[in-house]
């Protein structure tokens, strides 16, 4: 094994739920290494990670603030050697791109998509990521929690019950879990909620 291995995300935050898994990051040198690693792991080349740190991407900050090295053959593991990422300055651009993703998925739900679980999951992901971006400006420390929308100083207009269901929809789309999602109720709640009013309030502060 030549890759540096890290865990990151919820386990490092101590934010563990029944459906939590352990996010593993492998930083590889070659494509051959990449092929041998489990599909469920996040796998990046050293160059990609270095680029992320140099360009100050939010994901670089996520790794910097919330990862723990679990294996490295180096004297100083790769991320630790990179140090602090450059400042995150693309919040406006990321916010705008994520709003478009959210808009498209809500529109799919409004027009009675034949893949509602997928779209509900994307809505959750976009909302969570929008809140993560906003947290870099509105909170003392960025939040990478799945519950980041509730941590912002702007009231999030979706109930926990519906939000949890949207999380389950995302997990159904991406992981090996069984979950019951009340699709019709969640769909209606997401369509009816004043999500874009919330977005506009955030946008004014960014």
């Amino acid at each position, binding site marked *: 094994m030549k890759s540096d291995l890290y865990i990151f*995300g919820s386990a490092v935050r101590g934010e563990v739920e029944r459906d939590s898994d352990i*996010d593993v990051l492998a930083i590889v040198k070659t494509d051959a290494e*990449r092929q041998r690693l489990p*599909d*469920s*792991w*996040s*796998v*990046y*080349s050293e160059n*990609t990670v270095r680029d992320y740190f140099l360009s100050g*991407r*939010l*994901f670089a900050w*996520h790794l910097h603030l919330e990862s723990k090295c679990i294996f490295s053959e180096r004297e100083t593991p790769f991320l630790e050697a990179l140090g602090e990422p450059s400042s995150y300055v*693309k919040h406006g651009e*990321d916010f705008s*791109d*994520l709003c*478009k*993703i959210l808009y*498209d*998925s809500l529109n*799919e739900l409004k027009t009675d*998509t*034949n*893949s*509602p*679980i*997928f*779209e509900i*999951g*994307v809505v959750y992901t976009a909302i969570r*990521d929008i809140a993560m971006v906003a947290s870099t400006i509105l909170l003392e420390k960025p939040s990478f929690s799945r519950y980041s929308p509730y941590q912002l100083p702007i009231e999030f207009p979706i109930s926990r019950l519906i939000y949890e269901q949207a999380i389950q*929809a995302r997990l*159904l*789309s*991406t*992981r*090996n879990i*069984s979950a019951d999602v009340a*699709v019709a109720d969640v769909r209606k709640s997401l369509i009816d909620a004043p999500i874009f009013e919330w977005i506009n309030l955030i946008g004014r502060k960014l």
Partner: protein
Amino acid sequence: MSKKFANKIMAERKILSVVNEFTKHDIQLTGITAYAISAWATKINPNQNLEIIELLYKLSNLCHRLSDRSQESYESLDEEVTEKIEKIIPELRQALVLLWPNSHQ
């Protein structure tokens, strides 16, 4: 970051849309990960539908390549990969028609 995420979402949406034209609500395909395909295959009896499952895994691998195998963020939507996805979609549709000739909604 998110333009690439958006492109991947669009590719996944297109594939799901084709499959779910043929499925009933309770057996909708929910995602293009290996996990989601495997769960779906169990529901529809994979022994009789090998071609569809193989095509979906092929598409899953292509989508995976779009994301640099990240579960968190998505990278580099390679045009070549996108073209490969576009070429497989008609094959997928054909396999679905053969499997469920009367189910097209």
